[in-house]
């Protein structure tokens, strides 16, 4: 179920991708989700775009750290339970290694000017990656030419940006709208 390829090489690419993404992800969960989208949808072609959005929604509404949640699901999709474990390992190793080192050299780390500047300027690159992914996805939503979808995208943006409504709430409201949409289409038939 849901397993598309089987080879040692696949597992290695999965591990390597998760490791690299996790090693350079600063900021919240949506950052890594857009990086995963870039990697697994655009670069590797392992996942479909819609699928990645569904995974994001599931990830966001489950407990636990988002990158780990996403790794579990993507890993499962690529290579079953083994894939899940490999993906988790790739995701948690970089922060574990980095934090272990830092907890030894904490003071030096906090006062190093190169490190603090690098961490600040990297945000510009992170923002570019996320907005590039969003551009791509938003164009697709507009191309559906469904008023409901376009309106929901704009409203969800307003809700989170201006009214600070939590992502979970937005996802559950949209899920409810989706169910209503389904019931209406069933009635038409």
């Amino acid at each position: 179920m849901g397993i598309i390829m089987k080879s040692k090489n696949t597992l290695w690419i999965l591990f390597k991708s998760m490791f690299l993404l996790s090693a350079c992800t600063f900021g919240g969960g949506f950052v890594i989700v857009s990086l995963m989208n870039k990697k697994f949808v655009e670069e590797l072609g392992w996942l479909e775009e819609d699928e990645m959005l569904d995974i994001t929604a599931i990830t966001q509404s489950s407990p636990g750290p988002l990158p780990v949640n996403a790794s579990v699901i993507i890993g499962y999709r690529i290579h079953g339970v083994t894939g899940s474990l490999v993906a988790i390992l790739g995701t948690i190793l970089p922060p574990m290694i980095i934090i272990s080192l830092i907890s030894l050299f904490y003071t030096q780390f906090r006062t190093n000017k190169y490190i603090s500047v690098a961490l600040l300027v990297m945000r510009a690159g992170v923002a570019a990656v996320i907005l590039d992914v969003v551009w791509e996805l938003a164009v697709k939503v507009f191309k559906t030419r469904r008023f409901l979808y376009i309106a929901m995208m704009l409203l969800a943006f307003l809700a989170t940006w201006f009214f600070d409504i939590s992502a979970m709430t937005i996802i559950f409201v949209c899920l409810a709208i989706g169910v209503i949409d389904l019931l209406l289409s069933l009635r038409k038939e």
Partner: protein
Amino acid sequence: MQLLILFFSFLQVGLFSVGGGYAAIPLIQAQIVDIHGLMTLEEFTDLITIAEMTPGPISINSSTFVGTRLAGPIGAIICTLGCILPSFVICLTLAYFYYKYRKFSGVQTVLGALRPAVVALIGSAGLSILLLALFGDSTTYQLSDIHVIELLLFLFSFLILRLGKANAVTIILGSGVIGTFLYLFR
């Protein structure tokens, strides 16, 4: 004994932190500082600072930091395991059902309504990071306060990405290296 306490503390953090990194902070504080007194509030503040400055999810960073401080590398592994175990079980179950039923057209209709909202959520997160990069902690967003180096890095990175000339990791690390260079030698 302490290892067992650590494991169950972080199991609770993993189980009850819904909705991402910042939701986990008060939970970790409750478990580690308030209930078990394993760390002082000052150490905890340091921990959050480090967790925010370094890559990786805040709860993984915290479990490693707390674990290492209190019980060395084994502590780090125990805490992290506790933290990710609920994720693993719950998401694996959800993944199983998702891949079993997603081809049904009814499920597709419901999920279809969800996707535009997810795009909006990602967009909003991206925009916050962009504002943070361009204006720092200032929240007035005066055009005169804009960080020029970050603005150039952003525009350049965005252009390269739109043209499909580089992957995400290269862009982020590249902007870190080039940006640091520009800041220190301008």
